[in-house]
Structure formats: C-alpha cells, structure tokens
C-alpha cells in the first residue's frame, strides 16, 4: 500500500492545536470541575523507612467542616503489581496506601477529603502517623551489602533482579586485544518534571455503574485496564479521559497507584473526587529517572578495532516497581542498547536493579539510553585518547556501514546514516576543533568539543516486549478514520497528544491518503470512549506507528472512494487519483468528481453506489511495531567554554545531525529535537535529585531542583538526513526521545577535551567543573 505523491507529509504545516493552547482555551486536568466534587489531599510519609505504629484520624472531628478519610486498612489488598516474568526477580508490590510499613519519603499513607481544596489541606494536618523508624538502604553499595536486611519480607537481598545478556566469544576478544580500557561511569538521579504536574478526577455513577476517570496520563487505555483488573469493574463501564496534558516525557507514561485509588475513593464516597498534585509531591513521589552506574571494559586491537565489550550495570531503583515497565526495564535497556552503532562481535552485560528507600525509577525521555550513551560515548573518547586517535577517526573505524546489520545480541538494525552523519559533523565542527586545540595551552580559558554518536531503537513492537516478558505486553497503535457525508474526516487516534503535534501531523498523513486538505481532518484522542484500544504515547512511536496506522486506515477509505469514483466516471479504480478534494481520471483530469460528493453517495445517496457495495466510509487499523523496532540515528556535538579561574562553563554551540527516516512535519521534528536536547542539557549540567544519608529528599522545589532556563541555552542547530525505513508504512522512524539521549555524552566529552581530564560522572554543574579544572588553577 504505497502513498500517492505526498503533498502534506513533509510540509511545515503550522499546528492546529496551537490556537486553543495560545488563547487559554485548552482544558487540562485542573480545569475539570464537577458538581458536588470533593477535593482529596494525601498524607505522605515523612520518613524513608519505618513501620507504621498507628494512624490517628480522631482530630478530624475537631474541624467545623465535613471530612472523609481513608487509610491503608481501608484499601488493604489493593496494590500496584508490576512484575516481569523472570524467575529470579523479587516481587515488590506497592499498596495503594501504606498499611504497616513505608519505604520512601512521599509514600501515601492516608487520604483526606473535603469540599474545598484549602480545607482538605487543613484536614491533612489533623492526621497523625506514628512511625517506628527502620534503618535505611540509601545507596547502591548498601543495597548490595548482604548484611543489610531487605526492604521486603521474604526477599533474599536488596538486589531486585540481576541478569545477563551476551553474544560472541568475549574470552577470545580479550585474548586478542592489544588494549584493555576499563572505566566506571555514573549518571545521577533526576526527576522528569512536565510543567503541569499530574492529577486525577473520578466520578462513579451508581445507577448505570459507569466509572469515569480523568487523568493527566499518556496511556488512558492502560489506566482503564489496570483499574478494571484491580477494582473488578468491567472495562466496558470504565471511561478514562486524558484531557489536554501539559507535558509528559514518560513521567505520565506509567499507571500510578493514585489513579486506581482515586477511582476507588469516588466509588466509596459516591461523590466525584479531585486530586491535583502539587510540585513537592511531584518531585518526591511521581517517578524518578536515571541513577545508573556502569563499569565497562573494552577490548581493542592494536590498530583501533573494537573487539569486545564487557559491561556491569547497576540502577538504584528505589523501593517499588512501576507499571508497566517494571524495575527490570531500566537496567535491562542499558544492557540491550550498549552495543550501539559500532561493529563488534563479543559482548557480555550483567545488569541489576537494586532497592533503596527512594522514589521508584520509571520511564523518562530516553529511558536508560541517556545513561547508556553517556557511558558508551565517554568510553569511545577514552579509548581514542588511550590509543592516541582522533575521536572521529576512532568512531569511523568502528562504525557500522552495511545494512541491515545484525548486532552482537541478534538485533537487526535497518538502514541508517551512521558514517555519513559523523563525516558531516566533522566538517561542521572543523573550526571549533581548531579553536579548542588552540586554547589548550591556556590556564584561563579553555574550549572543548565533544560528540556523541548513537542509535535509538524506536517503535518497539510486541515481539520486543514478549522477549522481555514485561507487563506492557504489546506496542501497537490503532487509528479509526471516518469520512462523514460532507467529506470531512475524523481520526480517532489511540495515541494521546501532549505536545507532539499529533493533531496536525496525523491530519497531514490522512490528507495525503484521501486527497483532502489537513484542515479537513479533525483528530480526536485521549478518550477511551471514542478511541480504539492502544498502548498510548511513549517509546517514540507516534510518527512511525500512529502515522502508519492512520495511513493504512485512510488508504482503505481511499480505495473505496476510488471504486465509487471509477463506477461513476466509467474508469478503472487504478486510474483514479485523489487530490485537492477531487477524484480525477489520470491523464484526463477533466473527468472528475468532488470527493465530498463521493462521501455523500457512500453515506446517504447509497442507491448510486456500485452494485453490491456496502454503505459507509470508515476503517480502523492497529499497527504493531517491527520485530526489532526501527533504528533512528544521530550525532550530537557540544562546544563548551570554561573560565578556569571561576569554573564557569558556557555552552557555546550545540549541533544535532539526526536521521528519523521520513519527516512528517519539519516544524514538529525540529521542535521535538530541540526540546529533547535542552532536557538532555539539563541532565548533563543542572538536574540532580538529591537524597541525604537518611534518604530525606533535599531538592523538593524548583529553587533546589534546577532545570535549564533560557539564558543558559544556545540556539540549537539541527540538520537532517532522511533514510526512510522499509519497516513502517511511511518510512518514518521515531524521534520523540532522541534529542534527550546525546547531550550528556557530548557535553562530558567536550569538558574532557577542554580540560584534558577524564570525566566519569554527571551532572557537570558549577561545582563539578570547579573540581575538574582544579589542576589548571593549582599549576598556575
């Protein structure tokens, strides 16, 4: 099923959703207001690890307004179960409300409701929890110490899961190596921080037994399924609505205990219930991300060929496993992606997740790959330095050049532009490299250039999740396309749009297939009542899978329009072209009929249809990801300037060359890349979620958790190479996450280049740069 000549795909179409977002007409979760609604406030643990002796709610009766309260005893038996079907994985279950034990600061212990949000907050201060503190497990080292008791009864240790993956003969690679380079790299704990926090509103209608849940989520269907299974309601009577969602970045791509709990509370109270997360709650108790330590050992030949790689990967997971990607997801992803864009044939990775008294790690833009690429690309530079090779030269010597390529773990990469993008970046940076070299004699101002070359598996499909035995289970995206009698088109999309521009790009795709204008296509999403079952928007699948599903469904309608037009114009269907609102006979454009006229015939004047053709113009298609996904590639480059006397670092330039296959809308692609890069710069230089030795969180406001602001960020230069993939209908690969993957590695390599030191950890904040440049000050 090939698209006709694209008119709208690839065009810089301005986004349709912008009007409501700019005018203040958008409606986010906090804008959902229902009559008779109660406001819910959480009472959260202020202790990292403790037994709960008692929860005293008696003081609520002193208040002069009505309240409702629920504790862990009320919700006993209800929990979040996020388990991967690995025999050696230890099971951690998070109760909806802690009953007898808390395991991180911020864990919900009770909820209290009142008729006003301010009053609910007052009421929360009247609940007293008596904790009996337990020793905390605060670090990876403590978690791996067999002498420290496990966080869960029945566990053997605090290692939640440890597994291996391997390919090729590592011993032979080691024996043949002229150089062995071993390094340990560390990436810090972060929070994802969409500008809108999370929030849930739920209403249960007892008369027709329908539960409606509004949630600021990226995955409404999965929320529905989980609530159904946990609360024992039929899915047919649960409607989950994601209204306008103010950013997600993966943070909203898990099912949370509070989504289930608030639905349950609405059923118990018989009143609509609303909870809007505040920023402190978001920072301490929605998911965290990263927090990795990788020890890598590379085996390299005398002439600079990478022969083999050994990896030991630890992720500080926090206390609980998140649904549906689990605590095995993050370290497993590192093991899977470390081979990267390089051609070598022996590999062994041991990966583990360990439990600590911290907030759980979940999916945040890039998911493990920013940390994996940090280690992989720091290692490439460290090897090049050890061998006295130029970093470009060393990478080009080892880069994969022939496709499809079957990597050391058996994953097949579709075609990309790995070498070409490195070559092009080398040209773009020539002047910066020369300036950097000239500065390296200076003890006051140093310039450094660093690159990161990486690939990203996107649009993962069912086989990938089956191999990993992970509860997400599948990766397909569905779209239902319908043309109404006036020729206007509606797409009910299984993706949820929270900034990606899907209301525009999906309209562009349908418009090309159907020969109409994108303005004639209305995209609806985020509501399980109207949209077909899908896994939601995450894992860089919107363009390749959502776009592909829309294309196929719309093309089926187009086939029917051609058949009707052929009948009316006395031509063959394959002679009919759909474009600019007309169905025309090829080579005879004078013979044509309006598409809106065909739509009216298909739906109303059905007596004019070809004999035996059923009325109607709608089609639905569910598109699953390819077996190994489709691989996007990119090279990022950072140019930094360091003022040695003060340790202040300035980002002079940041350049991206990316290849995501077919570009659906360059405006949107550039925006996704730049936004991702700046989040990646945050990972590299600013963002650090800090716990003290007792696992008390120290960065609980935006005054402490620092994100990039405009003055710190240069204009991000973006260049494109398009290598369409044969694996998705439009040739598109995913790109939503890629921007965030490269910056930590590129910036760390630039700092290493500037200062002539090994850089093994992020964040590279003022303090870190001050310490890394100390030798230059000491010497002068």
């Amino acid at each position: 099923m090939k698209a006709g000549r694209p008119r709208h795909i690839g065009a810089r179409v301005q986004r349709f959703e912008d009007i409501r977002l700019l005018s203040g007409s958008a409606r986010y979760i906090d804008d959902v207001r229902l009559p008779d609604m109660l406001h819910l406030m959480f009472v959260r643990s202020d202790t990292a690890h403790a037994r709960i002796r008692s929860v005293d709610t008696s003081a609520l009766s002193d208040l002069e307004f009505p309240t409702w309260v629920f504790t862990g005893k009320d919700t006993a038996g209800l929990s979040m179960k996020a388990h991967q079907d690995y025999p050696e994985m230890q099971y951690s279950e998070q109760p909806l409300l802690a009953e007898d034990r808390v395991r991180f600061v911020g864990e919900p212990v009770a909820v209290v409701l009142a008729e006003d949000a301010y009053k609910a907050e007052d009421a929360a201060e009247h609940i007293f929890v008596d904790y009996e503190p337990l020793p905390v497990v605060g670090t990876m080292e403590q978690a791996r110490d067999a002498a420290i008791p496990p966080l869960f009864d029945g566990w053997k240790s605090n290692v939640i899961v440890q597994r291996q993956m391997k390919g090729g003969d590592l011993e032979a690679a080691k024996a043949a190596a002229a150089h062995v380079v071993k390094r340990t790299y560390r990436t810090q704990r972060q929070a994802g921080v969409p500008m809108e926090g999370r929030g849930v509103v739920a209403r249960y209608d007892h008369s027709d037994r329908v539960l409606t849940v509004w949630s600021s989520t990226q995955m409404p269907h999965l929320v529905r399924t989980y609530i159904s299974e946990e609360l024992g309601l039929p899915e047919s009577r649960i409607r989950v609505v994601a209204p306008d969602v103010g950013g997600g970045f993966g943070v909203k791509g898990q099912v949370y205990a509070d989504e289930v709990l608030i639905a349950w509370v609405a059923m118990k109270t018989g009143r609509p219930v609303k909870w809007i997360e505040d920023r402190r709650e978001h920072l301490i108790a929605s998911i965290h991300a990263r927090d990795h330590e990788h020890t890598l050992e590379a085996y390299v030949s005398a002439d600079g060929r990478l022969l083999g790689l050994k990896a030991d990967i630890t992720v500080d997971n926090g206390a609980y496993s998140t649904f549906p990607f689990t605590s095995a997801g993050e370290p497993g992803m590192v093991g899977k992606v470390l081979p990267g864009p390089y051609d070598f044939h022996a590999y062994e990775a041991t990966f583990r997740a360990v439990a600590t008294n911290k907030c759980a790690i979940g999916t945040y833009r890039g998911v493990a790959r920013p940390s994996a690429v940090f280690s992989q690309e720091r290692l490439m530079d460290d090897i090049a330095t050890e061998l006295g090779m130029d970093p470009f030269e060393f990478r080009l010597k080892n880069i994969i050049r022939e496709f499809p390529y079957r990597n050391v773990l058996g994953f097949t990469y579709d075609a990309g532009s790995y070498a070409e993008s490195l070559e092009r970046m080398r040209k773009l940076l020539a002047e910066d490299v020369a300036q950097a070299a000239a500065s390296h004699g200076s003890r006051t101002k140093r310039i450094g250039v660093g690159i990161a070359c990486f690939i990203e598996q996107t649009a993962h499909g069912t086989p990938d999740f089956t191999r990993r035995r992970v509860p997400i289970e599948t990766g397909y995206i569905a779209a239902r396309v319908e043309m109404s009698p006036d020729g206007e088109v509606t797409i009910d999309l299984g993706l949820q749009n929270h900034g990606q521009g899907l209301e525009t790009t999906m309209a562009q795709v349908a418009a090309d297939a159907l020969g109409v204008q994108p303005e004639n296509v209305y995209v609806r999403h985020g509501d399980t009542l109207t949209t077909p079952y899908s896994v939601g928007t995450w894992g860089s699948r919107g363009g390749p899978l959502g776009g592909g599903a829309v294309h196929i469904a719309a093309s089926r309608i187009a086939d029917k329009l051609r058949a009707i037009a052929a009948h009316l114009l006395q031509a063959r269907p394959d002679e009919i072209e759909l474009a600019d609102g007309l169905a025309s006979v090829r080579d005879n454009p004078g013979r044509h009929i309006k598409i809106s006229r065909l739509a009216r015939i298909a739906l109303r004047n059905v007596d004019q249809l070809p004999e035996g053709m059923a009325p109607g113009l709608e089609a639905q298609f569910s598109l699953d990801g390819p077996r190994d996904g489709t691989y996007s590639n990119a090279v990022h480059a950072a140019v930094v300037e360091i003022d040695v006397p003060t340790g202040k670092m300035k980002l002079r330039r940041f350049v991206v060359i990316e290849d995501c296959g077919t570009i659906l809308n360059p405006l949107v692609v550039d925006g996704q890349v730049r936004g991702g890069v700046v989040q990646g710069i945050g990972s590299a230089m600013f963002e650090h979620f800090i716990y003290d030795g007792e696992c008390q969180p120290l960065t609980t406001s935006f005054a402490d958790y620092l994100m990039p602001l405009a003055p710190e960020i240069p204009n991000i230069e973006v260049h494109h190479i398009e290598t369409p993939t044969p694996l998705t209908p439009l040739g598109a690969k995913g790109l939503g996450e890629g921007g965030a993957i490269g910056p930590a590695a590129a910036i760390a390599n630039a700092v290493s280049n500037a200062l002539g030191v090994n850089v093994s950890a992020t964040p590279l904040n003022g303090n870190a740069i001050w310490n890394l440049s100390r030798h230059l000050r000491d010497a002068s």
Partner: protein
Amino acid sequence: MIEITLEVNGVTKTLSVEPRRLLADVLRQEFNLCGVHIGCAHGACGCCTVHQDGTPRLSCLTFAVQCDGASIRTVESLGGPTAEHSLQQAFRSEHGLQCGYCTPGFLMTLVPFVDEMVEIGRRPDDEEIREAMSGNICRCTGYHGIVAAVRKAIDDGLGEGSVA
C-alpha cells in the same frame, strides 16, 4: 472573609474571599479563566503570570486580597479565542509552544517586553530576549521557538526599515 473588588479582562466582580486565597485560584475559579496555570505554586516557573495594573505578576505568590481595586489581565484578554495577538501568532509560526502549559505565562511575561521594544524602536539580540524570559520555565521547546517568536513579533511590530 474579606470583601474585594477585582476588574478582570473587563469584568468587575465583588467577592468575599479568605485572606489566604491565591489570586490564581480566584481567577481560575471565580472568573473561570482556565488560561491561568499553576506550575509550581512557589514562584519559580512563571506559568501563572498575569498582569496586575499592567505589570506582570505571579498569581501563585499573590493573595487575591492584595489586589482589591486592581485591574487584572490574563491570557484570555490578549487575542481572544482565536489567539489573534501578534505574539500569539508568532508563537504559532515559530513553534514556540508544544504542550502549551507554560505558554500563557510566557505570553504574559513577554507581551510587555515586545511592546516596549517596539515602542522604543529597538531590536534586542537573542541574549537579551533570553534574559527577558529567564523567570519562566518551558520544558518542551528548549526555548528556541520562543526566542524566534519574540524576535518575529518585534520585527513585525517595527516593520521593515523603521530602525536605523
């Protein structure tokens, strides 16, 4: 409870409010202005920026009772339901927004900046534009499109060749 009178986007109401009630909550709940967004509620992200008597102000750090007699403008007042203001249009053409949550705050912060630059006839460089938005956090765009939108709105306001 304290009685206050607010004029918001041309609508005047006299309300009885608790002293602790935030201006942001009063605008959202009593005036139904959902374009006022709360991002952090501690004055660090700029999402909730509105104009009080013409000056940008964080409505999450302002009590409604502090504004008795004030004239308040929110994003809804700029270009109406179709976002016709030149800066709103520039945000659209330059892709200065993605999820849209921080957008009303950026607009209310930057409209006076654009107006001032146009009035004094000056094209600021990107560094100065970035400084003007340094009190607002955007998590989606990387600021690039917002900077371009401000540049464009100032250019459009100045017209060709009106600056020496």
